């Protein structure tokens, strides 16, 4: 027998080798690296967040507290409280004009995050491909990969205000393609989809017999009287679409961790199979709060949307005024300024802005290679802070005009 040694030393390299190859192969997220820089920088104004600055509206928090007082602390059915699923079906029918059966076509999840994981695991055989558009939310590619799928990127272009073209999607379709993944309005660009291109993508999905997953998490946060049809509502699409939505953004409920997926019964059932063993159910407190949000949350949500709209106008006009070309995003709460006039890379820009002006933005490359030359500035920040941050960004851009 070997003599005992200090386990913390001798084990550490071994332990590393115990981690599954697939997981070791996943690179560290760019956003986490940057997070540490920001933490060390101390007192910064952060435009680097991906969540509302508003606390959850009080009536929703109060409903959660009341449910705790009553002792509603049990598990719920795997699919989620029927009352909530009914509210979801009603809300989705009103908002997107697609009717789902709350008994068989709605599953309540721990955020859109879990819904994505469930859907990819339910759909993908090893090696099957998912087409998605970049720059995009950081989780898509790793979630596809962890479900043994192959992420296939379509890069959207600044010239198109980062909207997706059906023709670009078509070029990526192969015999292995199984899913097209959409997210409009988009994190990090705020891009919205042209209805004609959306129809084009629906036509492709039907022609090639593909599933479409649409992440509608920002769909309430639209500006300038824009409407946002979901691809699920187009003819022939409901039966091949998983519509994902959640409470994090429009209802300012990120910390409640609640979302849902609406899909044909067979797909819902398949997702439920995974969910019942891995998660059992979403938190009942969050589910009760979500019912309150859907039934009575329209007015507070509209107040928040209006605040985002004002801030978007402010941010876009100030960034353009500072010589950082920024298109008017149609939705979400992000501006995606073009910083190439400074001659810096996204990462340099974000790092130096942080050091020199104590303002945090996220390098566009954290959201995919197509984000090079851009940074994400989140305007879900109090207007007075936002105004100060924008002045600093303007001073910075002035100093570094290439």
């Amino acid at each position, binding site marked *: 027998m070997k003599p005992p040694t200090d386990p913390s030393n001798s084990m550490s390299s071994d332990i590393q080798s115990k981690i599954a190859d697939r997981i070791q192969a996943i690179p560290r*997220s760019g*956003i986490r690296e*940057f*997070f540490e820089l*920001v*933490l060390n920088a101390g007192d*910064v104004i*952060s435009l*680097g*967040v*991906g*969540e509302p*600055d508003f*606390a959850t509206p009080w009536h929703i928090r109060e409903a959660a507290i009341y449910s705790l007082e009553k002792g509603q602390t049990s598990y719920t059915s795997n699919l989620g409280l029927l009352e909530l699923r009914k509210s979801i079906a009603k809300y989705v029918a009103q908002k997107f004009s697609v009717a789902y059966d709350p008994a068989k076509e709605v599953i309540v999840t721990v955020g859109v995050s879990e819904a994505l994981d469930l859907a990819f695991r339910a759909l993908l055989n090893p090696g099957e491909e998912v087409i998605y558009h970049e720059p995009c*939310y*950081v*989780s898509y590619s790793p979630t596809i990969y962890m479900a043994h799928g192959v992420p296939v990127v379509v890069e959207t272009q600044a010239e198109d205000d980062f909207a997706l073209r059906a023709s670009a999607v078509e070029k990526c379709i192969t015999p292995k393609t199984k899913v097209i993944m959409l997210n409009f309005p988009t*994190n990090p660009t705020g891009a919205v989809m042209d209805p004609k291109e959306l129809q084009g993508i629906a036509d492709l999905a039907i022609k090639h017999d593909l599933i479409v997953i649409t992440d509608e998490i920002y769909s309430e946060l639209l500006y300038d009287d824009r409407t946002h049809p979901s691809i699920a509502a187009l003819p022939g699409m409901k039966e091949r679409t998983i519509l994902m939505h959640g409470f994090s953004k429009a209802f300012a409920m990120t910390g409640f961790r609640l979302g849902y997926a609406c899909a044909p019964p067979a797909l819902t059932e398949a997702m439920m199979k995974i969910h019942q063993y891995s998660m059992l159910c979403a938190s009942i407190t969050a589910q009760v709060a979500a019912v309150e949000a859907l039934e009575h949350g329209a007015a507070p949500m509209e107040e928040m949307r*209006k605040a985002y709209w*004002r*801030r978007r*106008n*402010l941010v876009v*006009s*100030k960034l353009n005024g500072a010589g950082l070309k920024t298109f008017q995003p149609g939705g979400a709460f992000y501006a995606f300024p073009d910083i190439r006039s400074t001659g810096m890379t996204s990462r340099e820009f974000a790092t130096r802005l942080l050091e020199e002006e104590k303002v*945090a933005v*996220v390098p566009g490359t*954290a959201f995919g290679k197509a984000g090079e030359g851009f940074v994400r500035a989140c305007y879900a920040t*109090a*207007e007075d802070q936002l*105004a100060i941050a924008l002045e600093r960004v303007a001073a910075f851009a002035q100093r570094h005009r290439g």
Partner: protein
Amino acid sequence: MDALLDLLTKDSRLSVEDLAARLNLTAAEVQAKVAAWEADGTILGYQAVIDPEKTHSSGVTALIEVRLTPERGGGFDRLAERVAKFDQVKTCWLMSGGFDLAVVVEAGSLQEVARFVAEKLSTLGGVLSTVTHFQLKIYKQNGFLSTPAPDGLRLPITP
């Protein structure tokens, strides 16, 4: 409500340029709209919302319920407008329910409020009765909490 009015209601100190940038208007448009509202009485004034606890003011505030006899023709208007004219009266509303006017009065002391009620208010012809409630503490006024919720609870960078 008009988006500009809505924003002015939240923060009336924003400059014309700042208002314009937030609302996708030109500075001239903002100026013209505000001037028109000031002229037609849509905008009656601009005020700071102050927490009296911080100013250590010794003043008192009272809510007085007033019951009135309505008059032929004018209803409550003539009397209500008369009550509203007193400088001590900060707010005066006609109410549904068990009384007619809700009158908010600010004065230097309890005695001053008492004198106002006894000498000015109750003696007006048409005032049937009054009930005076004194304010003890303010938790929220004009939409502002006295103890604002702390911010900065978010992580600085999230996806």
